[in-house]
């Protein structure tokens, strides 16, 4: 072999003799790969194909060229849904990241109250999105929900779900309420891996708590922020259950985000080809946003995330 990778060089000598003995055949991974391909990758490809078809769910799909896509770009409902999705994602990110970051860093410490509080914080993650959406639907009922009692204390109109801004913010809040423990854990794990020496050195140099946070904790958590943000983006683009149960896309169409528009188009008006186009657009938006984020925050971070996992 003319080209020897540095890896091989390091691993030379006696080890090389053993090196390839007892390694599993790659074929062992095949069942898993095939299974995943059949139910996740192939459907993704079919979705793209269906987006060029007309399909009512009963007869066979018939190819119609780019009809769905030209319609998509002209459709004001789609434009609104795409805008609302972006808005919801931005609001969710802006709400969840600071809270999860602070909670996670705090929980990574050793204070005694931590274990108990972390256990309580975790509970929302155990509830299904369905249960949580129904719970908040009940709590926010303007006639007999808690909101009627507590709302006025904070200057919140009990008919929160009746206003378009209120409904969207509520969906973002409910999603945050559910997934905060997950992101907090991610940040907690990240914060645990910051070497204690850095803080000791900073303390010796007289850096206060705030400076330590901004000069050590935040930069060290850069990759964690990327990972968590990517998961938040994909997550909040798919707050489908919450919207279906809490707002049914309303008031009007003011919380009709992309997944809900897709569901309505596909499974209520049985325009499945067009729904597939919306779904494809959803994937493009999700992957696009994630890639921009990964680029923006440095190219190596996804790789090191992978190593951390």
């Amino acid at each position, binding site marked *: 072999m003319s080209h020897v990778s540095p890896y091989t060089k390091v691993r030379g000598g006696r080890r090389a003799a053993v090196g390839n003995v007892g390694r599993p055949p790659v074929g062992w991974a095949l069942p*898993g790969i095939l299974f995943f391909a059949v139910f996740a990758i192939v459907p993704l490809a079919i979705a793209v194909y269906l987006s060029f078809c007309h399909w009512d769910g009963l007869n066979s799909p018939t190819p119609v060229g780019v009809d769905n896509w030209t319609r998509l770009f002209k459709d004001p409902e789609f434009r609104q849904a795409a805008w609302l999705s972006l808005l919801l994602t931005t609001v969710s990110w802006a709400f969840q990241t600071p809270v999860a970051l602070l909670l996670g860093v705090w929980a990574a410490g050793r204070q005694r109250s931590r274990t108990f509080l972390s256990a309580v914080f975790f509970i929302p993650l155990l509830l299904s999105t369905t249960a949580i959406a129904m719970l908040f639907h009940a709590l926010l009922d303007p006639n007999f929900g808690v909101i009627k009692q507590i709302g006025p204390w904070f200057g919140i109109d009990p008919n929160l779900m009746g206003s378009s801004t209120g409904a969207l913010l509520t969906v973002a809040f409910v999603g945050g309420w559910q997934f905060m423990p997950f992101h907090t854990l991610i940040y907690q*794990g990240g914060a645990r891996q910051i070497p204690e020496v850095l803080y000791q050195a900073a*303390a010796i140099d007289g850096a206060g708590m705030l400076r330590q946070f901004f000069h050590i904790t935040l930069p060290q958590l850069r*990759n964690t922020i990327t990972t968590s943000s990517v998961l938040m983006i994909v997550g909040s683009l798919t707050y489908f259950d919450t919207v279906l*149960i809490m707002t049914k896309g309303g008031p009007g169409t003011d919380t009709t985000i992309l997944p809900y528009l897709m569901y309505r188009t596909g499974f209520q008006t049985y325009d499945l080809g067009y*729904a597939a186009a919306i779904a494809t657009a959803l994937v493009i938006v*999700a992957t696009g946003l994630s890639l921009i984020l990964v680029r923006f925050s440095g190219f190596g971070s996804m790789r090191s995330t992978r190593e951390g996992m």
Partner: protein
Amino acid sequence: MSVDTRRAARPAPAAFRARGTAARRRRWGNPLAGLGSLVWLVIVVVPLYTLVSSSLMHQDEALSGDPLAFPTHPTLDNYNTVLHSGFFTLLGNTAIVAASTVAIVLVLSVPVAYVAVRTRSRLSSLAFRTFLLGVAIPAQAVIVPLYLLIGKMGLYDTLPAIILPTAAFAMPVAVLVLSGTMRDVSEEMYEAMALDGATPLRMLWQLAIPMSKAGISTVAIFSALQAWNGFLFPLILTQSQEKRVLTLGLFNFMSQFGVNIPAVLAAIVLSVVPIFAVYLVARRALVNGLMGVGGK
């Protein structure tokens, strides 16, 4: 300032000062963050408290009274209503879905992760990358084709229609977590076993799997949780009442019970009880596993 005078009078050694900071951090954490965590505690606890307390109320009390007050005459009637509304069918279906999902995910993901960690072939790293990307595929994006596919397979309105896609979508995270823990098994141990003439299968069975118990339990719990809480696949891929799972049943209770909010809340509580029991037993495994997702 008292700190300054003390320092001027008797400069504390650097090590002592650093230790002092560490000790202070240990007791209080960052006071601001500590306060923030208390605020978040209220935000988490109030809805949960209302959920449980209102589920114990009579309907008229829930509709007219103070929802934050403890029920004046606690009652289990609502739970009774729910349990007599086909709750056990829902529970049984959900349990089948969750157990089968976990079984499929483990049987298929363990070899993938093992190959990803142990071989250096291009194919295995390609597979690993595909799973890494798989984390970002939203289930909504493939639901239309899955509807077609499941129909073509003749599985529409069966429990496998829910199980198979749920398992597939739980696999990316499973592979990532498993390969993370398997990577921690040292190469020397594999080599020692290889020198003893162990086959790859024996290495997997007697070394890799026992050493990655933590990852395996995380994956098991996490996929069970995903299956237990799944909504979209059951909603689209099943139809009949006998095939309904808990989440879908809950959604249905909402229209069935109408304004009987205490009954709806009781149903929610009942749906959480089993998963909560698992959580109490396996908290450490779940929490530690999820913490690793963030990377370094």
